[in-house]
């Protein structure tokens, strides 16, 4: 193992949508095993950054390196196999499938059975393979404590549980790097505490590197190893939670020129910080 290569590196990434500069020259590196947070006001470009890493967007300039390999132009569906998983800010479950099937879709790139062996279920080894993976998926279900909704249709679940199922599906990919876009948004205090515990366990027990976008500063400061702050598409600070909190630029982005901060984000972030 090349211990010294960062698991993920963003090198001078810029992203433009017509006249909108979503990201300007953003660089950072995430070490293997880190719990790394991206924070910043609404519209700062956090989701855009995660989209560049997961392949949803292609940076206008700059490069994304995963384990030292340039993946800038790689299609999103080829990134699952490399070990990149993610959840979405706005829920993106397969609404008509059961929770179990949702999570099993996460195993897609690990399964070898295809439509032909699937159709002859018992004959071509599909059954054996599906059941073996089902066992592993059950471990994830136990970990996230969603046993009771296994067979529920995902689209009918309440918000907090859906977020949890989405996390389960991302874990099922067996990612080395997991990207969590606002995993606690819209949750009550108790749900947030559970989610924070799951994320720490994922990082410590399951050994996954985590990149998390989160607005709840209390949680971010509590559990992150390192943080970067984006504002208007630029990286304005990087460091440990304490270093970042003390940074004058960060204070200004969050608290200072209030008319620069889109409505809503201040209340959301300021309240807990």
């Amino acid at each position: 193992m090349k211990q010294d290569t960062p698991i993920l590196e963003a090198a001078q990434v810029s992203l433009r949508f017509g006249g909108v500069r979503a990201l300007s020259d953003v660089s950072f590196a995430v070490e293997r095993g880190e719990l790394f947070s991206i924070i910043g006001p609404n519209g700062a470009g956090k989701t855009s950054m995660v989209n560049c890493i997961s392949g949803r967007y292609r940076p206008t300039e700059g490069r994304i390196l995963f384990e030292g390999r340039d993946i800038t132009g790689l299609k999103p569906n080829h990134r699952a196999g490399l070990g990149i998983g993610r959840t979405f800010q706005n829920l993106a479950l397969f609404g008509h499938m059961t929770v179990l099937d949702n999570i099993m879709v996460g195993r897609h790139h690990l399964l070898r059975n295809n439509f032909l062996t699937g159709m002859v279920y018992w004959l071509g080894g599909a059954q054996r393979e599906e059941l073996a993976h089902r066992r592993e998926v059950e471990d994830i279900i136990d970990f996230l404590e969603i046993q009771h909704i296994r067979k529920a249709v995902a689209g009918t679940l309440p918000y907090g549980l859906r977020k949890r199922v989405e996390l389960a599906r991302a874990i099922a990919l067996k990612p080395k790097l997991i990207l969590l876009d606002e995993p606690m948004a819209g949750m009550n205090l108790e749900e947030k505490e559970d989610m924070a515990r799951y994320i720490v366990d994922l990082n410590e027990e399951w050994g996954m590197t985590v990149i998390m976008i989160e607005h709840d500063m209390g949680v971010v400061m509590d559990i992150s190893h390192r943080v970067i702050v984006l504002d208007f598409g630029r990286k304005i600070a990087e460091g440990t939670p304490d270093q970042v909190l003390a940074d004058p630029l960060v204070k200004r982005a969050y608290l200072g020129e209030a008319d620069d901060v889109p409505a809503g984000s201040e209340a959301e972030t300021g309240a807990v910080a």
Partner: protein
Amino acid sequence: MAAIAMTPCGDFRESYRADTTIFPTRLSRAFAIAGIAALCLVPLTGDRYVLSLMIQIGYLGIAALGLNILVGFTGQISIGHAAFFGVGAFASAWFVEHGAPVLAAIPLAGLATTAVGMVFGIPAARLKGLYLAIATLAAQFILEDFFARAQWFTGGVAGRVTLRPSLFGYSFDTDEAYFYVVLAWVALSFLAAANLMRTRDGRALVAVRDHYLSAEIMGINLTYYRTLSFGISSFFAGIGGALYAHYLLFVSVEAFTILFSIQFLGMIIIGGLGSVMGSMMGSAFMVLLPEVVQGFADALAGGMIDRALGLGNAVSFLREMAIGAAIILFLIFEPDGLAHRWRLIKAYWKLYPFAH
């Protein structure tokens, strides 16, 4: 509550294997086996009329299953399914004409239809919504035109005459015998589809339908699966068409119209989009509805209402209208189709008498 799969008390699953069966309970599995056994007895009743309806339901059901995999499970659309059904019918007749035994020609026709389906499906897999609808509509017209012109393949305006299957000297000449051929294909097709939907690629199809962006993040290649779905759909259309050809023994170039394509869409809407068994229920509904209309017309024949409305002359028109009305009524009142209604009824009886 309806979201949780309901199973009777005391029916606990003790292994993941028991939890992934096609039939959720021992009883439902027993019912399915008993159902197939009962179907095997139908020819013994000697009722030719019932038999011919069941054969039609069978081959149309297989083709509807194919369309349901494309439309119901993958979320694509096709307004050209009848044309692929036609390709299967002509291909099977053509293979037999060139010396293939009928029982081999049927799966060969399925494969040939898949190949034709791919020609249209590979570009179509990159399209969505209205554009895809138009592309499949184009396939419908191109193939219809091809049927009319390709005399070598279809026999042109004369159409093509073909044979009943035979095996080791035994000929499936009678409807009674042919019924078993259709039943075997129905059982195989529906079992294969049910298995597909509980394994990797079946889940991938539904994932593409429900949320293609997250499907991609899960490592699913959208173009591949949209194309695959088109291929599987064409295969079942081809098998259905081939069984149709060897049942009617004559294939006409005029049979595979856009109206027929829309009837296939009607079947899966009525039966239930995204339901394997719903495809068969929809096919049964579509075959039986005109019979019921005809029955009413016959019952009224000569009576006052008949004289007033001239039903006798209008029966064929009435049939078409009943089909159209059924599609619209289902879209409004039962958008999840017969399969969904059936599940609710089952759930009700499982919990009976504690349904409230």
